[in-house]
């Protein structure tokens, strides 16, 4: 066995192969040292083999931690996942001794809440399942394991509640998982792209780190994907509403959370339309506003020497650069960047007559409203949405903005998340009264 393994691997120092001998028999073991926990190897193999309280071949047969592995084609893959291969009297066994380096007891960083669970999913899928199972102690919870990525061979776990899951969606997810042909998958975002989110304007899967969101989704019959090495889970199928509802909505004061929900929708509308409306109103239809407001806008623009869309492009360029910079910078310098960019530069640009003060307000409203969206991947998608509208506003004014919004709505209504409608109200219908469009499926 050892010679064969040696020929399979490129020259690697951490591939460890031993031939051991005691009074009764000789065994061969092989493992990759850097992937394995050496104490486990000695506890399970070296110690019982040398103590000889029981014949080693019997131990291997009785103890279920040793699993037989017959197919020599699987040797390399098994070794690379942190297993130890043992050859005892001609038959091969594998032993899981993997040592996974991961973040310990992670806290939620991306999707934070004030009251509510603060622990996030782990980068190790086994720990994540531990966290999920302890919150969702149901025998109906099914887990399937597969690997994705032709080189990375990343482990993916598919979780669903067997009772409430939609079988059409489940088979669609399985089919799409099998179809993935990408060499490397290291982040959940890559996986969601490979599952069909590549060119859609809005995400059709939620990427979250919150175990409570995962459990709620499982209970609603959704499917959860966990990826080894990433502390984020993918939830599908989802609707547009799911992206705008935070987990707090379920336990904070009822009326305030409803108000906040409305606020979030208004914020989304504002962040998408406001720069386009500014261009349209200033350049095409200043008569739209009441006279006093029109005068104050025109007055603040008096010193600006170029058309409104150049102003909008300058300011949006700056704010996007600022947001991008505060992500890229180390945490300690990040706050400096926002202070310099937001406060000082904005003020100075307005006083220098490069942009109007109304435009500064528009820009900050756009940026702030964008951060209101609870789910990060939706927030990123929405960030892009304002640019096509600005182009429509430049060429067609306010009618163009309205047409652009109409196209967005058609697009949203046309989007399906794994065959489920994405954008509609009251999507939960009692099962006995048939839903619209159920003829084709049934």
């Amino acid at each position, binding site marked *: 066995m050892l010679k064969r393994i040696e020929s399979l691997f490129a020259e690697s120092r951490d591939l460890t192969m031993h031939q051991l001998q005691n009074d009764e028999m000789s065994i061969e073991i092989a493992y990759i040292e850097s992937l394995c926990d050496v104490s486990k190897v000695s506890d399970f193999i070296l110690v019982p083999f040398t103590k000889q309280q029981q014949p080693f071949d019997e131990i291997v047969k009785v103890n279920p931690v040793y699993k037989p592995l017959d197919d020599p084609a699987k040797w390399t893959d098994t070794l690379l996942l942190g297993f130890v291969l043992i050859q005892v009297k001609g038959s091969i066994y594998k032993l899981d001794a993997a040592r996974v380096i991961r973040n310990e007891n992670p806290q939620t960083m991306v999707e934070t809440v004030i009251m509510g669970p603060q622990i996030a999913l782990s980068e190790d899928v086994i720990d994540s399942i531990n966290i999920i199972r302890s919150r969702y102690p149901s025998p109906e919870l099914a887990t399937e394991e597969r690997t994705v990525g032709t080189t990375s061979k990343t482990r993916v776990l598919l979780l669903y509640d067997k009772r409430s899951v939609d079988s059409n969606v489940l088979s669609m997810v399985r089919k799409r998982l099998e179809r993935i042909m990408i060499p490397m998958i290291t982040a959940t975002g890559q996986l969601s792209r490979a599952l069909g989110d590549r060119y859609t304007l809005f995400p059709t899967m939620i990427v979250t780190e919150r175990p409570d969101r995962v459990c709620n989704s499982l209970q609603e019959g959704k499917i959860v994907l966990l990826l080894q090495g990433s502390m984020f889970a993918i939830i599908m199928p989802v609707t547009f509403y799911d992206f705008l509802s935070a987990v707090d909505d379920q336990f904070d004061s009822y009326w305030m959370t409803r108000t906040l929900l409305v606020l979030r929708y208004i914020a989304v509308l504002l962040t998408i339309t406001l720069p386009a409306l500014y261009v349209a109103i200033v350049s095409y239809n200043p008569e739209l506003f009441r006279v006093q*407001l029109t005068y104050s806008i025109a007055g603040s623009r008096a010193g600006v020497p170029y058309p409104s869309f150049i102003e909008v492009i300058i300011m949006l360029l700056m704010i996007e650069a600022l947001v991008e910079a505060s992500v890229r910078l180390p945490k300690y310098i990040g706050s400096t960047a926002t202070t310099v960019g937001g406060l000082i530069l904005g003020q100075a640009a307005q006083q220098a007559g490069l942009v109007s003060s109304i435009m500064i307000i528009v820009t900050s409203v756009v940026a702030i409203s964008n951060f209101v969206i609870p789910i990060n991947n939706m927030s990123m998608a929405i960030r892009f949405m304002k640019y096509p509208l600005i182009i429509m506003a430049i060429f*067609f004014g306010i009618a163009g903005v309205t047409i652009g919004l109409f196209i967005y709505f058609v697009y949203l209504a046309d989007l399906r998340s794994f065959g489920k*409608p994405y954008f509609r109200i009251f999507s939960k219908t009692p099962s006995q009264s*048939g839903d619209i469009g159920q003829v084709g499926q*049934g």
Partner: protein
Amino acid sequence: MNRYFYYCVTIVSMLNLMMFVPYLLIQDRYTGAISSMLLAALIGTTMAFLFTFVMKAFPGKGVPEIFAMYFPKWVTAPLMFFLGCMYFISASIVLNGFAVLINRFLNPDTSSIVVLSLLSLACVYGATRSTLTNIFIVEMGLILNVPLILMILFKSYRNSNLDWDAMLTIAQYWRNPPKLNSYAAAVYLFTGYSGYAIFNRLNPPNFRLRYRWLIPLVCCFIMVTSFFVPIGFHGTEAVASYLYVWSVTADSMTMEYGFLERVVFIFLLLYLNLSLVYTANVWHIAMEFFKSCLPKAKPQIDPERTPLSNWVIACILGLFTVVTSYLLDEKQDLRLATNWLILRVCVEVISVLFLFVLSIGAGGKKQST
């Protein structure tokens, strides 16, 4: 899913403003508009009820499939083509009218052909989507726009400049016999059910339409509003001098609080949305009718990929609209709309009665087997 049916009813009756319905009614305000409206309410509601009966008799089937059950292809194909044209023309009139309105009120510098091309592109995109998507578009369009439109209507009724005496004066002419022109215009408001010629495909087999009394209620309210409110604002005589009478009416109102002062802008933007939704929808229906003429046509309510035939047909429709508007001026548009409304009355009565007879036959068959 009752609500989707009422969405279709509401959007068509709200869109009457773009079909010159108030203009045509107001032209006959002394000579039979009121009695035509009463007659239209009666007959329109009856037609709608008959059609709902047809829908119930053929669950999950659109009009093309119902015809295909009884007649060979060479009979149905020209019929379906004709019906498709009927649907298509209405939406094109609406879109054309709106391109003119945008040119008048919002962008006087942009030519209306350019605006119309843009509107057509948006609607072509909407029309090529699946049937299921189209019904969602109607839903979202109405939910977003109707509250604001209702607010405008409410404000118009509460406006101190509204002259109730003028409205009462006109209402006294109800004894004059109805006229075909104004009857055709008024009955258009009640034809929202016609969208279900295609959307009936979406209905699950156990579908039961409830709250049918909403049809006359909603439509009569909108009809009375769209006829009387302009008269109240402009007086009995001046009201007849405007073609797009409701845009002028909306411009007579102001809002005292908030960013905007002139109601007409909100009104136009809301109606722009509604017109786009309506056009996308009706073009989709027309497209489905045309598709049913093709050999090997198979209705799909929500295909994963948009078939190429969708794009081809919808693009032809859009192109046709733009070319027509290039050739016709506004007066010809108005005449086209009037003639279309009158032709539509005949087609409606014949086709609904015919379908009703078929559905009675189908009901009888079901009981016998």
